[in-house]
């Protein structure tokens, strides 16, 4: 158990009375990159939301631990402090809250959780500068309100920038490729790869194979109707690209 980062067992969750996740099992170890693929409506974003603690979802069964800590008992902020990071499919615009204040609040909250002193202003700014370089994020965005008026590409780069600052053990990238042109995709994926170490892990949630050309997965899982119905190596993504999702649907639906 020592080297298991994320351990999800029989996870069931839904929104209102509608069950979306119907028993998810997933094991992620340090150093691994997992891709979760699946057709629209299969529950990919629900899975990332449930793991991050989105209050819209209700967990109805199962468990999820990060380094042995029960995630489902924790608030979203404590899950973040424990090392979970979710890159949003649709990063939220927050008018009136500057990027700088937002990041300072996030960094110092984590330091407080870890019983560390807050960063000094100069330490903080130095860190911001270093981390911005990873995703080539323009300095002028730092003085703007969070995501407000950012282009699609800037929003996604901003997500990876925040990931770089928070140094999570496990990052979940939810459809990070959506809305990106090829150059932005390369920068974003490059950022993710730079942040990869043998101690952390990444879950890439995507609909298309495209992103996986840049972020190479060790494992590929296919999510359909709230369950992981098929797992394999990187070749599975290529197979999906070639054959589409219909053969998966047919196989699963004929069993139901």
């Amino acid at each position: 158990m020592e080297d298991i980062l994320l351990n999800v067992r029989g996870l069931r969750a839904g929104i209102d009375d509608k069950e979306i996740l119907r028993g998810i099992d997933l094991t992620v170890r340090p150093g691994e990159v997992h891709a979760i693929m699946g057709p629209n409506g299969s529950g990919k974003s629900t899975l990332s939301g449930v793991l991050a603690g989105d209050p819209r979802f209700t967990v109805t069964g199962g468990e999820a631990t990060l380094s042995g800590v029960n995630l489902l008992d924790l608030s979203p902020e404590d899950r973040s402090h424990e090392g979970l990071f979710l890159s949003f499919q649709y990063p939220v615009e927050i008018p009136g809250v500057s990027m700088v204040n937002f990041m300072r609040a996030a960094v110092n909250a984590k330091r407080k959780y870890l019983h560390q002193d807050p960063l000094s202003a100069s330490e903080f700014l130095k860190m911001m500068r270093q981390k911005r370089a990873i995703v080539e994020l323009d300095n002028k965005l730092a003085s703007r309100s969070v995501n407000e008026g950012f282009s699609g590409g800037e929003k996604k780069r901003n997500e990876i920038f925040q990931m770089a600052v928070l140094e999570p053990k496990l990052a979940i990238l939810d459809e990070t490729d959506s809305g990106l042109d090829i150059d932005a995709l390369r920068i974003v994926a490059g950022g993710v790869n730079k942040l990869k170490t043998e101690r952390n892990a990444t879950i890439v949630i995507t609909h298309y194979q495209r992103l996986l050309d840049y972020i190479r997965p060790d494992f590929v899982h296919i999510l359909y109707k709230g369950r992981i119905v098929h797992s394999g190596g990187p070749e599975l993504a290529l197979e999906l690209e070639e054959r589409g999702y219909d053969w998966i649907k047919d196989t699963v639906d004929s069993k139901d």
Partner: protein
Amino acid sequence: MDSLTQYIRLYDEHAATICAHAPEALNRLRPHALARLAAARFPRKGDKSYPAISIDEMFAPDFGVNINRMAMPVDMTATMHCGVPNISTLLGVVVGDTFRPSASLERNMPEGVTFCSLARAAETHPEIIEKYYGRLASGRNAAADLNTLLAQDGVFIHIAAGTAVDRPLQLINIFNPTAPVMATRRVLVVMEQGADARALVCDHTQERNVPCLSNQVIEIFVGENARFDWYDLEESSDDTARVSQLFVDQQAHSRFSLNGTTLMAGRTRNNYFIDHSGPSCSTRLTGMAIGMADQVVDNFTCVGHHFPESTSEQIFKYILDDQSQGSFYGTVIVDEAARFTDARQTNRNILASADARMYTRPRLEINCDEVKCSHGATVGQLDANALFYMRSRGIPEAEAKMMLMQAFMSDVIDTVEIDALRTRLHQLVERRLSGEAARCADCKI
């Protein structure tokens, strides 16, 4: 008996004393006010445009009135400092209803600026007082007429033609009650042609669990091409009731800007009446209120566009928690003659608790086709998506909520053009939202 009657009786019994301690220019208007009040009554909760507050109830307690002009026991003005850092103002203090210039006011008074008591102005500027005093407020409503009936002194600001005043004028209204008291506060501002000035008014009450009421009337004349900004910051106490009415007359090409902030109050009703007396005026009214416990904050605006090519903008925002109540009734009137008017109005509100209540009603009366007018009002909660986004980055829920509430107010605060005050307001709003009494440190008297 309704609450107005006790004040009319008070006047009937003490008219001679009241007049003896007041300048003739003020006394002259009393009989007219008295005659109008005979048939008047204070609005009650539920009356038209009074959904949240009863003026009648606010005046009901048996308040003392300082008709003998008793001097205050301690001269606080000597030690009075404004807590806003890096602000240098021309400071006057009103304790109860008595104006006291700060020690340095006379010395620092720039050329062309008069900032003194109405009583003194009646001697130095009799023709101005004669011409302007009571012109905008008389007959407007019972509270304004009662103010005219009882006002014995007040504050006078006169800026000579073409004078631009760099330092803001600052007025600190203080209640330091030892027994229930009503203060009749009166302000007359005359900005001559092309004059340019800003004023900051702060209302404070020393916490003593003694009820007090201020009935304030402010008359402002903004001459042709003149510009005047009025920043009004109320930071009083649960026991303070306030009825404050601002009447503004704008001449052609003038600019008037108001920021009315209620950080801490018991019950507050602010009326803002702005009328354009010439073309190409610009008016901006902004306001914000933070309500907690069972506080009530009620703002009423009426902007009258009577001439062509003028603009007006209104932005009012409220955050209401606990059982607090807020009201915003915003009126824009565009006359047939007011072609090419551009009038905008926005009222946005956050209810932070299930028991808080907000009443909002925009009213646009447009009698001209060639105008641009817009209005919008929203009542809602904090953005749940933004809140989760922040929490997912590790920002604790309470802190994330606070940041969102601050952000909500930031566009109103950013209209403040006195840098030190703007910075201070950001801090005060943050402190207030975190549940602290948002007191300007040095104003704790």
